[in-house]
Protein backbone atom coordinates (compact mmCIF):
# COMPACT_ATOMS: atom_id res chain seq x y z
CA UNK A 1 0.00 0.00 0.00
CA UNK A 2 1.42 3.37 -0.99
CA UNK A 3 0.94 6.51 1.09
CA UNK A 4 1.52 9.71 -0.85
CA UNK A 5 3.52 12.43 0.90
CA UNK A 6 4.80 14.73 -1.88
CA UNK A 7 6.71 17.19 0.27
CA UNK A 8 10.11 18.79 0.13
CA UNK A 9 12.43 17.22 2.67
CA UNK A 10 13.68 20.70 3.57
CA UNK A 11 10.11 22.02 3.84
CA UNK A 12 10.53 23.06 7.47
CA UNK A 13 13.69 25.02 6.70
CA UNK A 14 12.07 26.70 3.69
CA UNK A 15 9.09 27.83 5.75
CA UNK A 16 11.39 29.23 8.43
CA UNK A 17 13.50 30.94 5.77
CA UNK A 18 10.42 32.63 4.36
CA UNK A 19 9.46 33.82 7.84
CA UNK A 20 12.97 35.20 8.24
CA UNK A 21 12.68 36.92 4.86
CA UNK A 22 9.43 38.61 5.89
CA UNK A 23 10.91 39.69 9.21
CA UNK A 24 14.00 41.18 7.55
CA UNK A 25 11.82 43.04 5.04
CA UNK A 26 9.65 44.43 7.78
CA UNK A 27 12.73 45.61 9.67
CA UNK A 28 14.35 47.08 6.55
CA UNK A 29 17.42 44.85 6.75
CA UNK A 30 19.37 43.55 3.75
CA UNK A 31 20.83 40.10 4.41
CA UNK A 32 23.97 38.88 2.66
CA UNK A 33 24.95 35.21 2.94
CA UNK A 34 28.68 34.74 2.37
CA UNK A 35 29.86 31.21 1.61
CA UNK A 36 33.07 29.47 0.62
CA UNK A 37 35.32 26.57 1.45
CA UNK A 38 37.40 26.94 4.64
CA UNK A 39 40.42 29.22 4.32
CA UNK A 40 39.38 31.22 1.28
CA UNK A 41 39.52 34.50 3.21
CA UNK A 42 35.86 35.21 4.10
CA UNK A 43 36.65 36.73 7.49
CA UNK A 44 39.38 39.03 6.20
CA UNK A 45 37.14 40.12 3.32
CA UNK A 46 34.35 40.93 5.76
CA UNK A 47 36.69 42.76 8.15
CA UNK A 48 37.79 45.04 5.32
CA UNK A 49 34.30 45.36 3.82
CA UNK A 50 32.61 46.31 7.08
CA UNK A 51 35.38 48.75 8.03
CA UNK A 52 34.98 50.41 4.65
CA UNK A 53 31.20 50.89 4.76
CA UNK A 54 30.38 51.30 8.43
CA UNK A 55 30.37 55.08 8.32
CA UNK A 56 27.46 54.93 5.86
CA UNK A 57 25.79 51.59 6.57
CA UNK A 58 24.98 50.04 9.97
CA UNK A 59 26.29 46.49 9.82
CA UNK A 60 25.85 43.40 11.97
CA UNK A 61 27.29 39.92 11.51
CA UNK A 62 26.28 36.37 12.28
CA UNK A 63 29.27 34.02 12.07
CA UNK A 64 28.88 30.27 11.73
CA UNK A 65 31.65 27.89 12.69
CA UNK A 66 31.63 24.40 14.06
CA UNK A 67 33.94 25.48 16.88
CA UNK A 68 35.62 28.59 18.36
CA UNK A 69 34.69 32.26 18.46
CA UNK A 70 37.88 33.27 16.63
CA UNK A 71 36.16 34.76 13.60
CA UNK A 72 33.61 36.63 15.69
CA UNK A 73 36.40 38.16 17.78
CA UNK A 74 38.14 39.37 14.65
CA UNK A 75 34.97 40.84 13.20
CA UNK A 76 34.04 42.49 16.50
CA UNK A 77 37.17 44.57 16.01
CA UNK A 78 35.30 46.48 13.28
CA UNK A 79 32.81 47.77 15.86
CA UNK A 80 29.86 45.92 14.32
CA UNK A 81 27.66 43.77 16.58
CA UNK A 82 28.63 40.13 16.08
CA UNK A 83 26.87 36.89 16.97
CA UNK A 84 28.88 33.67 16.80
CA UNK A 85 26.99 30.44 16.22
CA UNK A 86 28.89 27.27 17.08
CA UNK A 87 27.03 24.40 15.53
CA UNK A 88 28.38 21.94 18.00
CA UNK A 89 30.89 22.08 20.77
CA UNK A 90 32.57 18.92 19.47
CA UNK A 91 31.85 19.25 15.73
CA UNK A 92 28.44 19.28 14.14
CA UNK A 93 26.33 20.97 11.51
CA UNK A 94 28.23 21.88 8.38
CA UNK A 95 25.91 24.74 7.44
CA UNK A 96 23.66 27.36 8.99
CA UNK A 97 19.93 26.71 8.76
CA UNK A 98 17.06 29.20 8.87
CA UNK A 99 16.02 28.48 12.44
CA UNK A 100 19.60 29.06 13.61
CA UNK A 101 19.64 32.47 11.93
CA UNK A 102 16.30 33.37 13.51
CA UNK A 103 17.61 32.42 16.92
CA UNK A 104 20.82 34.38 16.42
CA UNK A 105 18.96 37.55 15.38
CA UNK A 106 17.37 37.71 18.84
CA UNK A 107 20.77 38.98 20.01
CA UNK A 108 20.85 41.83 17.48
CA UNK A 109 18.90 45.10 17.50
CA UNK A 110 17.68 44.75 13.90
CA UNK A 111 15.90 48.11 14.07
CA UNK A 112 19.28 49.80 13.92
CA UNK A 113 20.81 47.55 11.24
CA UNK A 114 20.83 48.14 7.48
CA UNK A 115 23.07 45.24 6.43
CA UNK A 116 23.19 41.85 8.16
CA UNK A 117 26.06 39.72 6.93
CA UNK A 118 26.04 35.98 7.54
CA UNK A 119 29.47 34.40 7.36
CA UNK A 120 28.41 30.80 6.76
CA UNK A 121 30.28 27.69 7.85
CA UNK A 122 33.22 27.03 5.53
CA UNK A 123 31.76 24.45 3.14
CA UNK A 124 30.99 24.57 -0.58
CA UNK A 125 28.34 21.82 -0.45
CA UNK A 126 25.64 22.04 2.21
CA UNK A 127 25.12 25.81 2.68
CA UNK A 128 23.98 26.02 -0.95
CA UNK A 129 20.94 23.88 -0.09
CA UNK A 130 19.79 25.85 2.93
CA UNK A 131 17.83 29.03 2.38
CA UNK A 132 18.21 31.23 5.46
CA UNK A 133 16.01 34.10 4.29
CA UNK A 134 18.81 36.10 2.72
CA UNK A 135 18.52 38.75 -0.01
CA UNK A 136 21.74 37.85 -1.77
CA UNK A 137 24.36 35.14 -1.71
CA UNK A 138 28.01 35.41 -2.60
CA UNK A 139 30.65 32.72 -2.95
CA UNK A 140 34.31 33.32 -2.27
CA UNK A 141 36.91 31.42 -4.26
CA UNK A 142 40.61 31.99 -3.66
CA UNK A 143 43.42 31.60 -6.20
CA UNK A 144 45.03 28.99 -3.96
CA UNK A 145 42.13 26.62 -4.47
CA UNK A 146 42.15 25.34 -8.03
CA UNK A 147 40.52 26.68 -11.15
CA UNK A 148 37.98 23.84 -11.42
CA UNK A 149 36.24 24.45 -8.09
CA UNK A 150 33.14 25.89 -9.83
CA UNK A 151 32.80 22.70 -11.88
CA UNK A 152 33.15 20.52 -8.81
CA UNK A 153 30.56 22.49 -6.84
CA UNK A 154 28.09 23.66 -9.49
CA UNK A 155 25.11 24.14 -7.15
CA UNK A 156 26.96 26.67 -5.00
CA UNK A 157 28.06 28.73 -7.99
CA UNK A 158 24.63 28.43 -9.54
CA UNK A 159 22.66 29.70 -6.53
CA UNK A 160 24.98 32.60 -5.68
CA UNK A 161 24.47 36.09 -7.04
CA UNK A 162 28.14 37.06 -7.22
CA UNK A 163 31.59 35.57 -6.80
CA UNK A 164 34.70 36.99 -5.17
CA UNK A 165 38.04 35.74 -6.45
CA UNK A 166 40.36 36.41 -3.53
CA UNK A 167 44.10 36.42 -2.82
CA UNK A 168 44.92 37.90 -6.22
CA UNK A 169 48.11 39.34 -4.68
CA UNK A 170 49.50 35.79 -4.77
CA UNK A 171 49.02 35.33 -8.54
CA UNK A 172 52.66 36.17 -9.43
CA UNK A 173 53.80 33.30 -7.21
CA UNK A 174 51.32 30.64 -8.32
CA UNK A 175 50.85 28.46 -11.34
CA UNK A 176 47.18 29.50 -11.48
CA UNK A 177 45.15 30.01 -14.63
CA UNK A 178 42.97 33.00 -13.74
CA UNK A 179 41.18 33.00 -17.12
CA UNK A 180 40.28 29.34 -16.69
CA UNK A 181 38.84 29.98 -13.22
CA UNK A 182 36.71 32.82 -14.56
CA UNK A 183 35.60 30.75 -17.56
CA UNK A 184 34.60 27.93 -15.22
CA UNK A 185 32.55 30.27 -13.04
CA UNK A 186 30.79 31.68 -16.10
CA UNK A 187 30.22 28.19 -17.50
CA UNK A 188 28.15 27.37 -14.44
CA UNK A 189 26.62 30.82 -14.04
CA UNK A 190 26.82 32.97 -17.18
CA UNK A 191 26.96 36.71 -16.49
CA UNK A 192 27.74 36.19 -12.80
CA UNK A 193 29.46 39.32 -11.44
CA UNK A 194 33.00 38.38 -10.41
CA UNK A 195 35.04 40.66 -8.15
CA UNK A 196 38.78 40.03 -8.15
CA UNK A 197 40.22 41.18 -4.84
CA UNK A 198 43.05 40.83 -2.41
CA UNK A 199 41.62 41.10 1.08
CA UNK A 200 45.02 41.21 2.78
CA UNK A 201 46.22 44.02 0.49
CA UNK A 202 42.80 45.75 0.43
CA UNK A 203 42.87 45.73 -3.38
CA UNK A 204 39.89 45.56 -5.73
CA UNK A 205 37.25 46.37 -3.15
CA UNK A 206 35.68 49.31 -5.01
CA UNK A 207 33.39 47.38 -7.40
CA UNK A 208 32.48 44.88 -4.66
CA UNK A 209 31.43 47.65 -2.26
CA UNK A 210 29.49 49.37 -5.06
CA UNK A 211 27.64 46.11 -5.74
CA UNK A 212 26.65 45.82 -2.08
CA UNK A 213 25.47 49.43 -1.94
CA UNK A 214 23.44 49.03 -5.14
CA UNK A 215 21.75 45.91 -3.81
CA UNK A 216 20.94 47.72 -0.57
CA UNK A 217 19.51 50.68 -2.45
CA UNK A 218 17.30 48.35 -4.49
CA UNK A 219 15.83 46.74 -1.40
CA UNK A 220 15.75 49.57 1.07
CA UNK A 221 14.70 52.04 -1.60
CA UNK A 222 16.78 54.84 -0.21
CA UNK A 223 20.26 56.30 -0.11
CA UNK A 224 22.09 57.40 1.94
CA UNK A 225 21.21 54.92 4.63
CA UNK A 226 22.12 56.87 7.79
Amino acid at each position, binding site marked *: *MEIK*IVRKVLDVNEKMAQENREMFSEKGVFVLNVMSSPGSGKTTILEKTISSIMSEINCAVIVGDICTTNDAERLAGTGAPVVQVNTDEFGG*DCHLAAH*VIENATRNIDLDSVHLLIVENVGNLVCPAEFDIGEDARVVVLSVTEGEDKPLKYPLMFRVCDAALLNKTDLLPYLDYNRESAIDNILQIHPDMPIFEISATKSEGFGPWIDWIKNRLKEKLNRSPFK
Partner: protein
Amino acid sequence: MKIWAVSDDFAPRCLKMHEMGIAMQIVEMSIASIPEEMKNVQVERVNLKVGKLAAVIPGSLRFCFDIVAKDTPLSGAKLHIEEIPVIVKCNECNKESVIKELSFKCGACSSGSIEILSGRELDIESIEIADG
Protein backbone atom coordinates in the same frame (compact mmCIF):
# COMPACT_ATOMS: atom_id res chain seq x y z
CA MET B 1 32.34 45.04 21.96
CA LYS B 2 30.19 42.18 23.17
CA ILE B 3 30.17 38.98 21.21
CA TRP B 4 27.12 36.83 21.68
CA ALA B 5 27.98 33.17 21.32
CA VAL B 6 24.96 31.03 20.56
CA SER B 7 25.08 27.29 20.69
CA ASP B 8 22.91 25.39 18.25
CA ASP B 9 21.79 22.72 20.68
CA PHE B 10 18.18 22.47 19.57
CA ALA B 11 18.64 21.46 15.94
CA PRO B 12 18.85 17.96 14.55
CA ARG B 13 22.50 17.02 14.57
CA CYS B 14 24.22 16.74 11.24
CA LEU B 15 26.91 14.58 12.83
CA LYS B 16 29.53 15.79 10.37
CA MET B 17 27.67 14.27 7.40
CA HIS B 18 25.26 16.47 5.49
CA GLU B 19 23.03 13.53 4.55
CA MET B 20 22.45 12.53 8.19
CA GLY B 21 20.22 15.50 8.91
CA ILE B 22 18.34 14.89 5.66
CA ALA B 23 17.89 11.21 6.53
CA MET B 24 16.48 12.18 9.92
CA GLN B 25 13.98 14.48 8.22
CA ILE B 26 12.94 11.70 5.81
CA VAL B 27 12.32 9.27 8.67
CA GLU B 28 10.41 11.89 10.68
CA MET B 29 8.23 12.92 7.73
CA SER B 30 7.56 9.28 6.80
CA ILE B 31 6.46 8.34 10.30
CA ALA B 32 4.26 11.44 10.49
CA SER B 33 2.46 10.37 7.30
CA ILE B 34 1.39 6.99 8.69
CA PRO B 35 -2.26 7.19 9.76
CA GLU B 36 -2.85 6.77 13.49
CA GLU B 37 -4.77 3.53 13.01
CA MET B 38 -1.81 2.00 11.16
CA LYS B 39 0.94 2.88 13.57
CA ASN B 40 2.34 -0.68 13.92
CA VAL B 41 2.98 -1.20 10.23
CA GLN B 42 6.33 -1.91 8.62
CA VAL B 43 7.44 0.51 5.89
CA GLU B 44 9.09 -1.36 3.03
CA ARG B 45 10.12 1.48 0.76
CA VAL B 46 10.51 5.24 0.73
CA ASN B 47 10.33 6.95 -2.65
CA LEU B 48 12.40 10.10 -3.12
CA LYS B 49 13.02 12.48 -5.99
CA VAL B 50 16.54 13.91 -5.91
CA GLY B 51 17.66 16.40 -8.53
CA LYS B 52 21.04 16.00 -10.19
CA LEU B 53 22.02 19.41 -8.88
CA ALA B 54 21.00 18.72 -5.27
CA ALA B 55 23.88 18.61 -2.81
CA VAL B 56 23.12 15.03 -1.79
CA ILE B 57 25.12 11.89 -2.49
CA PRO B 58 22.69 8.95 -2.84
CA GLY B 59 25.10 6.41 -1.35
CA SER B 60 25.70 8.56 1.72
CA LEU B 61 22.00 9.20 2.08
CA ARG B 62 21.22 5.47 2.04
CA PHE B 63 23.96 4.85 4.58
CA CYS B 64 22.61 7.49 6.93
CA PHE B 65 19.01 6.43 6.37
CA ASP B 66 19.77 2.84 7.41
CA ILE B 67 21.25 4.12 10.65
CA VAL B 68 18.47 6.56 11.46
CA ALA B 69 15.66 4.17 10.49
CA LYS B 70 16.80 1.49 12.94
CA ASP B 71 14.21 0.73 15.64
CA THR B 72 11.53 2.70 13.79
CA PRO B 73 8.71 1.54 11.46
CA LEU B 74 11.18 2.25 8.63
CA SER B 75 13.82 -0.19 9.83
CA GLY B 76 15.04 -2.21 6.84
CA ALA B 77 13.09 -0.09 4.35
CA LYS B 78 14.62 0.50 0.94
CA LEU B 79 15.31 4.06 -0.11
CA HIS B 80 14.32 4.41 -3.75
CA ILE B 81 15.83 7.49 -5.36
CA GLU B 82 14.53 8.80 -8.68
CA GLU B 83 17.17 11.10 -10.10
CA ILE B 84 15.68 14.20 -11.73
CA PRO B 85 17.58 15.78 -14.64
CA VAL B 86 18.49 19.46 -14.79
CA ILE B 87 16.03 21.06 -17.21
CA VAL B 88 16.25 24.76 -17.98
CA LYS B 89 14.03 27.21 -19.85
CA CYS B 90 15.63 29.93 -21.93
CA ASN B 91 14.50 33.50 -21.27
CA GLU B 92 15.60 34.46 -24.79
CA CYS B 93 14.05 31.78 -27.03
CA ASN B 94 11.68 30.14 -24.51
CA LYS B 95 12.92 26.66 -25.37
CA GLU B 96 13.54 24.03 -22.72
CA SER B 97 16.71 21.96 -22.71
CA VAL B 98 18.39 19.32 -20.57
CA ILE B 99 21.73 20.28 -19.03
CA LYS B 100 23.87 17.19 -19.38
CA GLU B 101 27.35 18.59 -19.01
CA LEU B 102 28.32 21.37 -16.69
CA SER B 103 27.46 24.21 -19.03
CA PHE B 104 24.43 26.23 -18.04
CA LYS B 105 23.39 27.59 -21.40
CA CYS B 106 20.32 27.12 -23.54
CA GLY B 107 20.72 24.05 -25.73
CA ALA B 108 18.99 25.83 -28.61
CA CYS B 109 20.47 29.35 -28.70
CA SER B 110 23.36 29.14 -26.16
CA SER B 111 22.02 32.04 -24.12
CA GLY B 112 23.11 32.08 -20.51
CA SER B 113 19.85 33.71 -19.48
CA ILE B 114 18.08 30.59 -18.24
CA GLU B 115 15.73 29.53 -15.51
CA ILE B 116 16.12 26.16 -13.82
CA LEU B 117 12.88 24.18 -14.06
CA SER B 118 14.07 20.95 -12.46
CA GLY B 119 17.16 19.36 -10.98
CA ARG B 120 17.19 20.79 -7.48
CA GLU B 121 14.55 18.53 -6.00
CA LEU B 122 14.93 16.87 -2.63
CA ASP B 123 11.39 15.56 -2.24
CA ILE B 124 9.78 12.69 -0.43
CA GLU B 125 7.10 11.36 -2.76
CA SER B 126 5.60 8.42 -0.90
CA ILE B 127 6.16 5.46 1.38
CA GLU B 128 5.12 1.86 0.73
CA ILE B 129 3.80 -0.24 3.55
CA ALA B 130 3.83 -4.03 3.75
CA ASP B 131 0.41 -5.54 3.00
CA GLY B 132 -1.27 -7.60 5.69
